[in-house]
């Protein structure tokens, strides 16, 4: 095989990986602040993907244009979930939170199955088959748009947490829960806001990902697992880590699919996870908790 093929596949994996990273960023933000592991994360992703598919099928609306409205819908969903469902579970043991979110995930997956059926659905845009040729490299235009959109959304989130007052308040909650209460922050509302923002990330990622991947209901649990792997590899609670982890996993899976059989590609993601857990349990960019 000529060397360009490897580079082509690696770049395609990198672009897909950025979208994975955006999805994982949502999980990381939620865990970093609310300290709840969102076991329904991938399921929320499939909800966003189906929203994009439905909007495209009914009104021919391009998923990239629908990115913000879909992110908004998911924000409301996340806000509501945190405010009414998860708040009473904040001080409960991990396994209780896990059970709650598993129940939510089961309802979501099968709700989608009832509404949309088991068949794979996708979106065919006018630029589906376009590509850019740079020297010997041929890059899928859809993936370039997808990767760029993911970077823009992630940058917006970074800016929000870095510069806005609310973003600073949320970081204060994450750093010191009691301290945040003492200075009079409305922690419950900020937690709901954070969960909403995490869900909005997933919503944006879902809207982007329909351009690349066909959606079926069972993708939900698979994405949840993928988001976990990425976030742990990158470092739980670290925002740049999530993006980096996404790219790393995206490139690894793409190259593994080329070198071995495509169906075995996830094994390499798990192998990376095991290596990271063994030698750097806090993740590549994470800080040691204790």
């Amino acid at each position, binding site marked *: 095989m000529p060397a360009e093929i490897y580079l082509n596949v690696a770049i395609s994996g990198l672009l897909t990986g950025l979208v994975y990273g955006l999805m994982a960023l949502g999980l990381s933000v939620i865990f970093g602040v609310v300290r709840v592991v969102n076991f329904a994360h991938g399921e929320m992703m499939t909800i966003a993907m189906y929203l994009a598919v439905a909007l495209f099928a009914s009104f021919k609306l391009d998923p990239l244009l629908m990115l913000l409205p879909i992110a908004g819908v998911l924000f409301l969903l996340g806000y509501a979930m945190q405010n009414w469902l998860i708040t009473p579970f904040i001080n409960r043991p*991990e396994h209780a939170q896990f059970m*709650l979110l598993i129940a939510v995930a089961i309802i979501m997956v099968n709700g989608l199955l009832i509404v949309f059926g088991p068949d794979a659905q996708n979106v065919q845009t006018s630029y589906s088959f376009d590509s850019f040729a740079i020297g010997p490299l041929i890059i899928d235009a859809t993936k370039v748009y997808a990767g760029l959109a993911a970077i823009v959304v992630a940058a917006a989130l970074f800016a929000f947490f870095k510069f806005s007052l609310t973003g600073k308040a949320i970081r204060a909650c994450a750093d010191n829960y009691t301290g945040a209460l003492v200075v009079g922050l409305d922690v419950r509302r900020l937690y709901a806001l954070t969960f909403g923002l995490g869900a909005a990330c997933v919503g944006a990622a879902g809207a982007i990902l329909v351009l690349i991947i066909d959606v079926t209901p069972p993708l939900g649990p698979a994405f949840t697992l993928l988001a976990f*792997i990425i976030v*742990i590899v990158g470092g739980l609670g670290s925002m740049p880590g999530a993006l980096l982890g996404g790219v790393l996993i995206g490139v690894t899976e793409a190259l593994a699919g080329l070198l071995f059989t495509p*169906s075995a590609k*996830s*094994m390499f993601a798990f192998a990376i996870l*095991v290596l990271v857990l063994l030698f750097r*349990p806090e993740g590549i960019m994470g800080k040691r908790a204790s």
Partner: protein
Amino acid sequence: MMGRLTQGVPRRILIALAVLLAVLLLAPWVANDYVLTVLILILYFAYTGQAWNIMMGFAGQLSLGHALYVGLGAYTTAALYVHFGVSPWLGLPVAIVIAAMAGAFIGYLAFRFGVTGVYFAILTIAFCEFARIGFDHFRWVSGSSGFFLPVANYTRNDLWNLRGSPAMFYYVMLALTVVAFLICHWLLRSRIGYFWQAIREDEMAAKTLGIDTFRYKMIAVVISASMTSVAGMFFAFYYNNLFPEQVFHISRSIELILGPIIGGIGTLFGPIIGAIVLTGLAESIFELLSALGWTPPGARQVFYGVCLLIVVMLLPDGIWPPLARKLGLDKSRDKTER
């Protein structure tokens, strides 16, 4: 032996258990095939729940990948039977050793490097998924196209090769469940059981008291994995087909741990009550929906999820602890409420 086992257990509990066992022993004579199938499912989940509970309920280590041990047990016994004609009961020790080694490997990696809590849970999922994809490409057991056991006709029960009628499988599963219950009962009151509970409540404090926490956590994983692999043998010979996508799927792991969580983590009766409630719930929802004539795929699971949600929100400790308080069994020593 019997004296030690029953020591300190209130008499009403013993009588209730004896009556329950008698009813279960007589069930195949009155129950039709459908009811028997449901009872087998309940016993299966009570057994696997009990095995999982050793790790989570007793020693406080959350495993979300127990389907791995079920799968290893199932594939080992089935492959030995199909390829070499080895009886499942002879294949079982091999399966137990393999599952115990897998458990020990995961435990060693995790506990040596201080991987705990959520991280440990995700490590267990990762190994189970790794096995799923690995078995998909494992030619010797036909990979993703599924591994099938020859199906015998049900004229004669062959207990040695586990070929026979549902009633035979029912009694096998009942025996396994009773043995698992007794083992857990004994473990919980043994020295090891107290060490586990100390680790579960406060690992640092347990360490300070001189408990070798690494060693006892390892023992918990190995026992739990071994017991779970026995359920795998049952699974393989009862269903006669094994697909990696189903056997090692994450929903199998979740299914298996819902019972003890709903019933009450760390209690002896929790896994049994949880299995009865969950399986009963699932079956009655199915019946209800069929009666209404509305059976789109997934409808049953949605109701299942909603019921689960309600139980989790209203009963934080599971069903058994509040029930035990109602029945006035608060002080019974076989309960270790958290």
